[in-house]
């Protein structure tokens, strides 16, 4: 099977190389009109078909690896290092992306899948898709070259073949780990497609903004995957790592967050290009940067440049990625310089206080946040170069620098939708901002009254201050967006004599992009509320004998048993804790510590009881070797479930934004009132984005 897999990868590389070469030649012939022995259109089509075949070849290779994992083929080094016989089936599947070689193969497969879909849809615009397909083939050639020569997943073990493998990293043996990495990779890899379209459109001097409309769905879906991947990672860190938090500003986390920020900036600024024909160069560079950041993140974490709790071991692929990034950057700069006059835009703004300006400031803040994270991630390397010694850039730095920027972004999230396109008047500002301002000040007063104060022991408490500002801004933004919904729904309700809920539904259907975006913004607000809750986390730790108890917040935890268990995969110690509130038993929790037999690595399994106001989060820290009693650490983490609820809204909003809006004709039918005479000639109000 190893030979079969290796051969499939070699064939995939050859096909991708043909796609790149033949595609480039065909496009050159078409562009110059030179005579050729074969019609360039036919040559381009053979290139496209080769691109489709790449998908099948890589799928075969991926299947070969999964087959080998399920059949415990420990002759393959990768299988021996990342699997064992007792590993449950779902995790055997996850072994595909648990190590460097396998995850790069997954990357290739996802790239192949995206390429497959792209090449099948070529009739949308044959020439543009030919350019995009050829550029995507170049990216495929790089990744396939890496898995063929630098990090081959099918390399064979030298020497004696062991009876069993080393097993999967215990941290990865958790249900979310089966979907978190593919989701994140879908996000990373997916940005290759808008990148290919942007570069292709620039190379061929594609007229108009159609390429943006073509790539909008790709970008939005990719953004959704990246968002989902990031939050699944947060939830995994929360539920598995057992430190009570979900985001540690680890370089790997940062690596995923940076392209998310630039991708988000792109999704906003393309609206300027679509509506006003502005920011053409900016948008092209945003998508170039996003793609480059996905590569940089991979370089940072896989080349050993920065230390991370989940970076892969230092390997030679760093050089490959550095060279490829250099080539990509050079191609981008060269193409831009060559074709920059094609991106000439009429920049027209009527007012500093307008929707257009808010998009500019939104981009400014998102890119500054991206810079801060990149700067913090790279500063240890810079410090070592300048001072000769490394420094740590951890959570305190990011919390001090990135959090204020994030709050400013939240402010813009609320202000942007309130500002009309072109210009606004003082009267409109006053009318639109009254309610959000009242919500803001009312929240500040309520928060201060209930004890959310930025002063602690006479000293300034940044955590409480940020939480206070975060709560107040969240309330303000929520009010602003809700009032936008209500205002529009009220008009429709009045026109169509429907109830407010039906009118809201119709409002959303009329402009899914705009109101889907607003739903995403509400999701972000709810996430921020959840994040603000972390300022009030409490925890306590205690060794518990039988029937001993400990308290955290309103809960009392009584130890009613501690015991051991084992299966073929791991041994576990766990405690049984009855949880009381107000003297009454509420539920039972069983935090656990496992030691995986194959790897002999320990792992905590956190017990979490989640309610909207807080999470009771209990960790089995270990066992006292002298007394044999469990050491329990209990956290009371306020508002954590709001984060996950906010993510659900973000996903929902993205789906809404992906649904096409009702056409004016369909909307007219929908708004038809019971009396036919009334609907005739009723103009349909259709909002903008």
């Amino acid at each position, binding site marked *: 099977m190893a030979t079969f897999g290796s051969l499939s990868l070699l064939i995939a590389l050859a096909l991708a190389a043909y796609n790149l070469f033949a595609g480039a030649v065909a496009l050159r012939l078409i562009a110059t009109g030179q005579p050729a022995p074969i019609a360039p259109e036919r040559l381009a089509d053979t290139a496209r078909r080769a691109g489709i075949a790449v998908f099948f070849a890589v799928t075969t290779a991926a299947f070969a690896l999964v087959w080998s994992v399920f059949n415990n083929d420990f002759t393959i080094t990768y299988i021996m290092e990342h699997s064992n016989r007792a590993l449950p089936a779902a995790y055997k599947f996850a072994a595909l992306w648990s190590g460097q070689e396998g995850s790069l193969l997954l990357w290739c497969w996802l790239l192949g899948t995206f390429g497959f879909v792209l090449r099948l849809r070529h009739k949308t615009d044959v020439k543009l898709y030919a350019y995009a397909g050829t550029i995507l083939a170049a990216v495929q050639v790089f990744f396939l070259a890496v898995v063929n020569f630098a990090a081959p997943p099918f390399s064979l073990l030298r020497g004696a073949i062991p009876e069993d493998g080393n097993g999967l990293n215990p941290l990865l043996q958790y249900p979310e780990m089966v979907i978190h990495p593919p989701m994140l990779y879908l996000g990373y890899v997916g940005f290759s497609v808008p990148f290919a379209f942007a570069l292709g459109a620039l190379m061929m001097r594609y007229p108009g903004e159609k390429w943006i409309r073509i790539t909008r769905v790709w970008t939005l879906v990719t953004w959704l995957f990246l968002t989902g991947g990031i939050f699944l990672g947060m939830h995994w860190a929360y539920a598995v*790592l*057992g*430190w*009570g938090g979900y985001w*540690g500003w*680890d370089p790997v986390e940062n690596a995923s967050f940076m392209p998310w920020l630039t991708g988000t900036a792109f999704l906003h600024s393309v609206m300027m290009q679509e509506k006003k024909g502005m920011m053409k160069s900016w948008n092209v560079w945003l998508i170039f940067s996003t793609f480059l950041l996905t590569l940089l993140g991979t370089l940072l974490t896989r080349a050993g440049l920065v*230390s991370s*709790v989940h970076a892969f071991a230092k390997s030679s692929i760093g050089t490959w990625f550095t060279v490829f990034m250099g080539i990509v950057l050079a191609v981008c700069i060269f193409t831009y310089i060559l074709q920059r006059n094609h991106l000439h835009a009429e*920049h*027209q*703004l*009527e*007012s500093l206080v307008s*929707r257009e*300006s808010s998009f*500019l*400031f939104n981009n*400014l803040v998102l*890119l*500054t946040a991206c*810079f*801060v994270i990149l*700067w*913090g991630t790279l*500063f240890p390397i810079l*410090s070592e170069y*300048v*001072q000769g*010694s490394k*420094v*740590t*850039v*951890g959570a*305190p*730095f990011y919390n001090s*620098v990135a959090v204020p*920027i994030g709050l400013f972004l939240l402010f813009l999230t609320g202000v942007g939708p309130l500002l*009309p*396109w*072109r*210009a*606004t*008047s003082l009267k409109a500002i006053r*009318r639109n901002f009254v309610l959000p301002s009242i919500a803001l*000040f009312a929240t500040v*007063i309520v928060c*201060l009254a209930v004890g959310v*104060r930025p*002063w*602690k*022991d006479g000293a300034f408490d940044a955590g409480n201050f940020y939480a206070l500002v975060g709560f107040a801004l969240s309330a303000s933004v929520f009010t602003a967006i809700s009032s936008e919904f209500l*205002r529009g729904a009220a*008009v429709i309700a*009045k026109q169509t004599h429907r109830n407010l809920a039906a009118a809201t539904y119709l409002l959303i259907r009329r402009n899914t992009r705009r109101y889907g975006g607003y739903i995403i913004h509400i999701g972000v607000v709810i996430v921020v509320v959840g994040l603000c809750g972390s300022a009030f986390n409490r925890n306590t730790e205690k060794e518990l004998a039988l029937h001993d108890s400990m308290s955290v917040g309103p809960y009392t935890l009584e130890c009613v048993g501690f015991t051991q268990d084992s299966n073929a995969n791991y041994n576990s110690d766990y405690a049984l804790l009855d949880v009381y509130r107000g003297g009454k038993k509420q539920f039972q929790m069983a935090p656990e*510590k496992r030691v995986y037999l194959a790897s002999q690595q*320990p792992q*905590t399994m956190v017990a979490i009881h989640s309610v909207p106001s807080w999470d009771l989060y209990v*960790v089995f820290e*270990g066992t006292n070797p002298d007394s044999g009693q469990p050491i329990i*650490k209990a956290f009371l983490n306020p508002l954590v479930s709001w984060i996950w609820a906010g993510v659900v809204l973000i996903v929902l909003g993205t789906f809404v934004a992906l649904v096409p809006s009702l056409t004016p004709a369909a909307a007219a039918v929908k708004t038809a009132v019971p009396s036919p005479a009334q609907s005739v000639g009723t103009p349909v109000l259709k909002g903008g984005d």
Partner: protein
Amino acid sequence: MKASLHNRNWIKATQAILLAVAVCFSVGASDSSARYDRLNHQMMCSCGCGQVLGECNHVGCPDSPVQLAELRTAMNAGLSDKQILDSFVAKYGATVLAAPTTSGFDLVAWIAPFAVFLAALLGTILLVRHWSVGKKTQVPQPASTPEMDAIRERIRRETGSEGSY
């Protein structure tokens, strides 16, 4: 006259809100373990796990319990925050601090983000102004006709907005 009175009410209301906020801000809370928490969150566990000292929880960590005990001892000995952090740097090296210091080259780490943000903010404002000026000189305002004014007024009436969407 009526508008002036209206504005005065607004100012009074704003003043009252600000006063209420100021009063609430001046009331402080107290927590004796805050300093310990603050300090153990300013340092890293030195075992290489990459976690903040106060949050390092991996089973059997050889270093974090020792470091936390040292922190308690130093606090009980009456050392200031700076003295405690300096003693940890002397023992474990500069990487024990969870964030760069505010002296020497490390200061650049703190300055650069804000410098970039301010420069970008200034640049954006100048750009918007430049584009606004360009617009004013290039594009004439659309003519106002009674029909257009009537439509605008109707949009305002029906949507309760400026009708710019």
